[in-house]
């Protein structure tokens, strides 16, 4: 049995055995999603039809009574798939666990512990998915120490990158309006360093209207900054928000240091610009952004505009238009999109989405991608939703693309400790 499969199986078994025991008589929020899709998958001129059926479950159990532990929670999400047709990785039956952990706070909430499969986002972790432990200790004066470690989770369609990871963050949060931190991460891959970075981050609410966010990550191995960003968010009114941002990345440092490709380049990419959100009228929302990009290939830019209008006061009908441009020295695209949503009564909702993209240079000999999508959803019982969707159009990879999907969702919360006056 492969090590990664063993780990996933162990997590599934632990959840299967431990969950019913631990959450008995507690509060459980859960969602089950069943999805049956049919899609065309073009591969080098041949169109394969794939019909996958997914079962996905999200589950969160809280108020689990464990003596001496506060806020114990068990969180699980996982899925299984059975597919007809030829899938990309030749696996017609598969599944995985996205998240499965138990967490709680010990010593009068001064020590938080999370064990299992989880995501770590803080500092330079860069949303690391790992099987392991994450421990956060709260010290006086708002000082917080986080240490995490384990084994990185192998991605779908791929092999494991990294056999071990350790990282941490030391942060100071004297009040809710400021937090600053120093962090590090070290990922090993087959005895070689995959990524070894240290970073500094900060977030400060300067006034009630202005928040500053900054991050700098430094590759210890390459002695270069891999990522740095500075952002100012200004919210002068509840309905107006302006963000100014400048960022610099070294894209080659996002390639594993254990890859042969890590020795060929030292790139730099800069980006600066602003985004605006304005809601001049309760029914109308406007978004806009514009950025200048610069890298070793030259200077380019990206910009976008979007407007969304609730046609009636009851928000039964909504329409939106969107435009977006990405212009690089060697390539560009222009996107135009119109979408709409209408509610038929309380329970039935329908949507339409038309998307056109003009590509330059041509991709696969085509410079136009045109897609139309529609959905109809029906909340047929409390907590239940059924939905069918279809997508059709022409794209650079398919002369005529057609997809269909049926979805069934069930949300519920179960409270054994129901409050009964």
């Amino acid at each position: 049995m492969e090590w990664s499969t063993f780990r996933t199986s162990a997590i599934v078994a632990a959840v299967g055995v431990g969950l019913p025991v631990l959450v008995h008589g507690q509060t459980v929020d859960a969602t089950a999603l069943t999805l049956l899709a049919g899609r065309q998958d073009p591969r080098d001129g041949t169109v394969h039809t794939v019909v996958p059926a997914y079962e996905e479950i999200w589950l969160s159990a809280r108020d689990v009574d464990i003596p001496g532990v506060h806020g114990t929670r068990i969180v699980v999400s996982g899925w299984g798939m059975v597919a007809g047709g030829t899938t990309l990785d030749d696996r017609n039956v598969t599944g995985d666990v996205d998240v499965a952990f138990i967490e709680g706070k010990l010593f009068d909430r001064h020590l938080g512990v999370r064990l299992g499969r989880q995501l770590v986002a803080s500092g330079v972790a860069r949303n690391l998915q790992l099987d392991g432990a994450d421990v956060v200790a709260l010290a006086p004066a708002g000082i917080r120490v986080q240490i995490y470690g384990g084994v990185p989770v192998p991605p779908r369609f791929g092999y494991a990158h990294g056999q071990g990871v350790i990282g941490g963050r030391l942060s100071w949060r004297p009040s809710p309006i400021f937090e600053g931190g120093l962090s590090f991460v070290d990922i090993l891959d087959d005895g070689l360093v995959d990524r070894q970075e240290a970073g500094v981050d900060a977030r400060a609410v300067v006034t009630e209207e202005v928040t500053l966010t900054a991050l700098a990550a430094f590759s210890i191995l390459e002695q270069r900054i891999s990522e740095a960003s500075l952002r100012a968010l200004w919210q002068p009114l509840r309905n107006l928000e302006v963000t100014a941002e400048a960022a610099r990345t070294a894209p080659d440092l996002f390639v594993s240091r254990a890859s042969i490709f890590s020795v060929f380049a030292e790139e730099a990419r800069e980006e600066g610009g602003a985004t605006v959100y304005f809601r001049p009228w309760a029914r109308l929302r406007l978004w806009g952004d514009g950025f200048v990009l610069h890298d070793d290939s030259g200077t380019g830019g990206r910009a976008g505009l979007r407007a969304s209008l609730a046609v009636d006061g009851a928000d039964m009908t909504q329409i939106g238009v969107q435009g977006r441009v990405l212009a690089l020295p060697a390539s560009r695209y222009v996107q135009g999109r119109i979408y709409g949503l209408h509610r038929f009564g309380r329970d039935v909702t329908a949507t339409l989405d038309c998307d056109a993209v003009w590509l330059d240079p041509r991709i696969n000999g085509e410079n136009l991608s045109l897609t139309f999508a529609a959905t109809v959803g029906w909340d047929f019982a409390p907590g239940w939703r059924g939905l069918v969707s279809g997508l059709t159009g022409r794209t650079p990879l398919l002369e005529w693309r057609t997809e269909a999907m049926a979805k069934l969702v069930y949300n519920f919360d179960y409270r054994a400790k129901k409050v009964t006056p």
Partner: protein
Amino acid sequence: MRKALALVALAAAGGALVSCWPASPRTTPADPPSDRIRAPHEIHAKNDVKCIACHEGVFDETALGTAPEALPPEDTCLQCHKEQKEKNNCSFCHTDVQHAAKRTLAEGLVKMSHQKHIERVKEDCSTCHQRLPEPFAAVDTVPKMSDCLGCHEHAQEYAQTQCTGCHPTLNRIALKPLSDFSHQGNYIARHGADARSSAGNCAQCHDQTYCADCHARTVATRVEVKFPESVDASFIHRNDFLGRHSIEAAGNEASCRKCHGNDFCTSCHQAQNLTPTAQNPRDPHPLGWTIPGSGDFHGEAARRDIASCASCHDQGPRSNCVSCHRVGGIGGNPHPASWLSHHDHSEIRSNGMCTTCHF
């Protein structure tokens, strides 16, 4: 195959378990009863009626809404107002006699134990309840959050964003319009920086399953496929992303690589016969790819965008680059000019990958 079947069987069993759970679906709260009890606190206080005389049940209330006796039962009122009942003067207490009903406690939105607090304040209820409710008065008399934060312990919890110590769920509580918490605008584009510096804030409202929908490397399918009805959401890979993905990647390859590794690209490019190890490989490169100075020369392209090379050619240390760029090979030194400034020669012996070229 058996392992995969076992996984799916477990997932299906989990689904069945969830479906069969004795569930209570989310429902909207029932309309509040029209009848209310006239309980003028001010008059009671002036007549020196102690809080405990009526609200004896709070001594045993460990969580808000769990002790029915926290509100006085009718018998308690009748200890003083028996004559009104005897005179059938129901409206003395009930505002809607036609729909007279027993008072019920609302579910507490805050975790709070009266039992613990009443000891700490030495039975002085006014420490928290500085204003008392009067019949039909429009003034909100529920203690404010600032009253709770007056206590050092809760002030510290607030400073450390330990919201869930008091708020079991924040879903029903409107947050202040602080820019700190604003999710307006294109929040998808900027949420990452907030999460890196304040992951604890996010966790107050969002389970990791919420993050995992997009960020887990193990997801079943794209979030745009799972939620096609969310036409207003700022999803990244909506509609025909595949058609424009090469331009997006050229514009910000680091952004792609925050979620997708080399192998993610290679798995699909291999199926497209774009990788050198594919069954029937074809050459997607321009004509001048191997001609120095042609403008399309691969060395300059690699310096500009090495991740694009890696998206097809990363077959481990012995990828096809090494056949020319090894020591003594015809490809020459592939390292950038500043390479030696931060890589000592001694690294060759300590780094196993260097030995692929440096024998």
